[in-house]
């Protein structure tokens, strides 16, 4: 099949933030032999190609553009949506910077041929089961990278995230302990991000707020792909909590102490490499995407002779 990822609604700053979400899905599909393209230009392919959009419709008119394309005259279209946020998370869906986000999403959902969600964020209330699939993140060979040897790791703890007030407190506490701390800041391009990760003894995965219910599977998977030793804040009781198997997971209060101990552990780098091997042998992004393709629309696309 041919999947075209239309990412114009993230242009341009958002494109940098969604790499870790989109790339494993793209390469999981490619590993299954599907053709995947992506772009920001307005011309979109019709059925039997599938157009995939990652949710974020805040710009005025962006939801209308999608609906006009999907429902307008001309040949049949196939629309898929990747949903990455908890519908009940007011930090995101109620953020005053994005006043149209939730309403636009709820307007588009009924018109999607399929919806892929990466967190269990309440979508089953808005999408019938025959059009909804959950995507677990798994290992994908195309995104495997290698960090530096242990002796060359000059960063003790790397925050793989933007630094807000909650994370800043921890950042400062770790620095006071004498650890060398850095952050990817959320916007850095690959060449800098991978450089920082490859130099880090620990990669830190901490939620942005106490009210956040779900961990960030894309962050954990990105760090595991690089063989990083991940220290996760332990809080998620959903199926996403399965990813804690591959991290050093502790409650927020214990993170500082654990980072201090782990950063000095002689086998800190080996732990991450071992976790990646477990992640590789126990999970597969291609297999997970195969399960997400079990929805009826994909049988219809295949029967239509999708390229």
């Amino acid at each position: 099949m041919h999947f075209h990822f239309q990412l114009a609604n993230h242009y341009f700053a958002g494109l940098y933030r969604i790499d870790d979400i989109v790339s494993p899905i793209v390469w999981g599909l490619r590993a299954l032999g599907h053709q995947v393209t992506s772009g920001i230009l307005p011309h979109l392919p019709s059925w039997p190609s599938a157009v995939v959009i990652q949710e974020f419709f805040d710009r005025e008119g962006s939801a209308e553009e999608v609906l006009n394309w999907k429902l307008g005259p001309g040949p049949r279209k196939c629309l898929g949506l990747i949903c990455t946020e908890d519908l009940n998370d007011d930090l995101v869906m109620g953020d005053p910077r994005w006043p149209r986000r939730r309403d636009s999403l709820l307007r588009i959902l009924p018109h999607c041929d399929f919806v892929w969600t990466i967190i269990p964020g309440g979508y089953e209330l808005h999408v019938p089961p025959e059009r909804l699939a959950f995507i677990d993140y798994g290992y994908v060979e195309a995104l495997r990278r290698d960090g530096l040897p242990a002796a060359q790791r000059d960063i003790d703890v790397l925050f793989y995230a933007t630094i807000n007030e909650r994370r800043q407190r921890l950042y400062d506490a770790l620095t006071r302990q004498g650890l060398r701390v850095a952050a990817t800041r959320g916007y850095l391009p690959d060449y800098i991000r991978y450089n920082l990760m490859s130099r880090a003894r620990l990669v830190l995965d901490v939620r942005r707020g106490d009210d956040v219910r779900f961990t960030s599977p894309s962050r954990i998977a990105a760090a595991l792909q690089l063989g990083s030793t991940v220290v996760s804040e332990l809080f998620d009781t959903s199926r996403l909590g399965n990813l804690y198997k591959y991290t050093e997971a502790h409650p927020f209060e214990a993170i500082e102490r654990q980072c201090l101990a782990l950063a000095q552990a002689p086998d800190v780098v080996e732990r991450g490499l071992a976790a990646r091997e477990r992640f590789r042998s126990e999970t597969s992004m291609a297999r997970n995407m195969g399960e997400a393709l079990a929805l009826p629309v994909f049988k219809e696309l295949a029967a239509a002779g999708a390229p």
Partner: protein
Amino acid sequence: MRFHFLLTNHYPFGCYRIEDIVVPIAAGLAELGHTITYGFDDDIPPWPVVNLVVENFNDPAVVDEIARRRGSDTRYCFGLLAHEDLDDRTVFAHPDYPYRRHNLERVLPLIDFGWSIIPCDYGGLAGGEKMRFLEYGYVPALRRDGVLPRDIDALFYSDLGERRLPLFNALAQRGLSVSATFGVLPDYMKLELLDRCRVVVDVRRRESVRYLTPTRLVAALHAGVAIVSEQYDTSPLARLYRYVAGTDHAQLLDMCEAVASSPKVRELGIATRELFAAETSMARNLRAAMSGTVFAGLAV
């Protein structure tokens, strides 16, 4: 040695725009066995680490900081990476960046060495004698062997603008599949476009531009993609024309169409890349650029 790219003045989105400038240099230095790091703000390690700053100092903060560190008791090493034509008024007299030229002139006396990827003349500026021309060459680490179907006929590996947009539209009108990187796409999209295209179209943004863009050609060459270039540069950079199908502006459309429609276009791109790999070396060029006294001191 450790080379530390201090990129405060490009954070956040400028870091994407300078990627094709920085990455071949970083990869070439790594090939020579040097350590590469990146940092921001006050992450400025002292001698014998080499702090490399990339020009564009309309905001004077980084230049001010270099001056402050120069006045401190701790020794630092600073190198400048320059990437624009000093005489290009669309860059250095741009009304949106009124202090760019002034702060470049301020930083030149403060640096230990400088590399310019454009062979323009710094001789008339105080400290300009420290600038050396750095040519791009092949780096094995950047080689890409794309496996995606080549479904884009012509890719503008650049933003569009008033000079390129008519070509973009004319190629589309001829029935070619055309796309662009717009200058700001992240790697996962930019590299995918490169891997999917049959031809990279290389056109200068204005008639007045004197120098070709080596970073664009080198990115396409590492991906093994055939290039159609507007040929106008007579400087040492013109050596890169050996690896492109060059023509004048009036013939670009026909040349693009002919190359993109050739059944041998993929083989052409790969063969050209192999020629580039055999004849050039980023590591060799960097070794030659590190022949000054400052590097002798650093090596000790």
